[in-house]
């Protein structure tokens, strides 16, 4: 547990910053909803008729005038992209940084096995993702109470669950990448998150590219789909979790055998 506590301590400021930023933006959106609600019907009609732009962000399928519809689009993009960036950032550097910062030598000379190193660092990544999601959910729910709107619990909780699972997948994949790279990991991790986001936009725009939703975790965490269908697509989640787990397994295999350059 020593390494886990060390990682959590090291990441404390980063976790607070990301959580506060994402939470603040989501709270701002929710707090603005009552002001915008009156105009939402006309805005919703306008957004729904903007062709591919509407389809890209799911605005052709849900109403901007309802709290869950507004939340899915506005807060969904914040937590979706922001959460993906956060998970990628946490995971992609956590193994590689010991080589980059030349502290690998410290770890290698102490009675800590590589499996323990990987496991405790993975636990630190997962814990940070859990904490960020719990706090942002609490901030969102708190904001909804403040504005006095009736909370569409099922849709809100489903969306948050989907974003959480999406972050787990991206975190798992980036954790695997962290075992292979020595530097430049942040660019790769954030690049993967952005690419996954845009793949979902492409899938939303083009019927021919709909299969791409099975590749990107933004496919099963698309707020518009969740509200429309009333559920998260289980097959997409299973594929996503399998990819995340594959990343974690790759990390174990690579890191335990890697010739680490202190």
């Amino acid at each position, binding site marked *: 547990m*020593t390494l886990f*506590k*060390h990682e959590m301590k*090291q990441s404390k400021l980063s976790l607070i910053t990301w959580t506060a930023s994402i939470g603040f933006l989501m709270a701002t959106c929710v707090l603005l909803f009552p002001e915008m609600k009156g105009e939402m019907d006309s805005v919703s009609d306008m957004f729904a008729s903007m062709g591919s732009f509407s389809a890209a962000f799911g605005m052709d399928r849900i109403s901007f005038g309802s709290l869950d519809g507004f939340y899915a689009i506005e807060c969904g993009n914040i937590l979706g992209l922001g959460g993906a960036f956060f998970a990628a950032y946490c995971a992609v550097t956590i193994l590689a940084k010991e080589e980059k*910062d*030349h*502290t690998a*030598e*410290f770890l*290698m*000379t*102490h*009675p*800590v*096995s590589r499996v323990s190193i990987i496991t405790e660092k993975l636990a630190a990544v997962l814990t940070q993702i859990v904490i960020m999601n719990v706090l942002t959910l609490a901030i969102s729910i708190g904001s909804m109470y403040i504005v006095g709107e009736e909370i569409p619990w099922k849709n809100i909780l489903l969306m948050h669950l989907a974003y959480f699972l999406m972050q787990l997948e991206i975190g798992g994949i980036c954790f695997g990448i962290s075992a292979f790279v020595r530097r430049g990991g942040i660019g790769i991790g954030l690049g993967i998150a952005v690419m996954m986001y845009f793949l979902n936009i492409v899938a939303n725009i083009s019927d021919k590219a709909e299969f791409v939703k099975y590749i990107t975790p933004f496919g099963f965490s698309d707020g518009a789909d969740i509200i429309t269908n009333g559920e998260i697509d289980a097959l997409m989640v299973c594929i996503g979790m399998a990819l995340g787990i594959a990343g974690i397994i790759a990390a174990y295999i690579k890191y335990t055998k890697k*010739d*680490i350059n*202190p």
Partner: protein
Amino acid sequence: MLRIEHLTKQYGEKKAVDDLSLHIKPGEIYGFIGHNGAGKTTTIKACCGILPFDSGEVYIGGKSIKESPLGCKSMLAYIPDNPDLYDFMTGIQYLNFVADIFGVSASRREELIHLYADTFELTEDLAQPISAYSHGMKQKLAIISALIHEPKLIIMDEPFVGLDPKASHLLKEIMRKICHEGGAIFFSTHVLEVAEKLCDQIAIIKGGRLIKSGTMEEVKGDESLESVFLELEENHG
């Protein structure tokens, strides 16, 4: 305490360490000298489990570093020539982190941290972040972190680099004390005068190969270590 048997480490075509065998017994201070690029650091890192090696074996306290790496590392402390520490930590946080890894009890670690921090005059700086430390202060902190878990074997790579004269003197005293109490020390150095005064045994390495080893008297006889070293370097050129 440390037995190196036919150690070979190759990088591509080049043998950084070539069939090296050494035996360091409990109670010994063993010096390891050689020119730049001779293979000293490679040997040391292989002994500590940082670098894998191509053939041979390293035993620490009778345990193989390959088969029982955690068992070996629990008996060992390594002090590099240029310690890379966690800059975001304070000195005391770093020492507690190391003590946690080795399972040192709270009371014992407090006692030893006070002892060694006072000895090296680092007590007042322990609350500062390591990022604010000079090289010498980092070296002192690395030494303290090596001592607080009371290892049986200490391996050091040019430990006197960056230390002020007082700290160097204190380190030598501590090294003698550790060996007197049954520990062993294996260290590399370019400062031949220090090796001459401090070491019980010495090994000279060149081009990855051991060219001379034995007690200080056996290696240097009536001459100075410096002249013996230079002569051996020429003869094995």
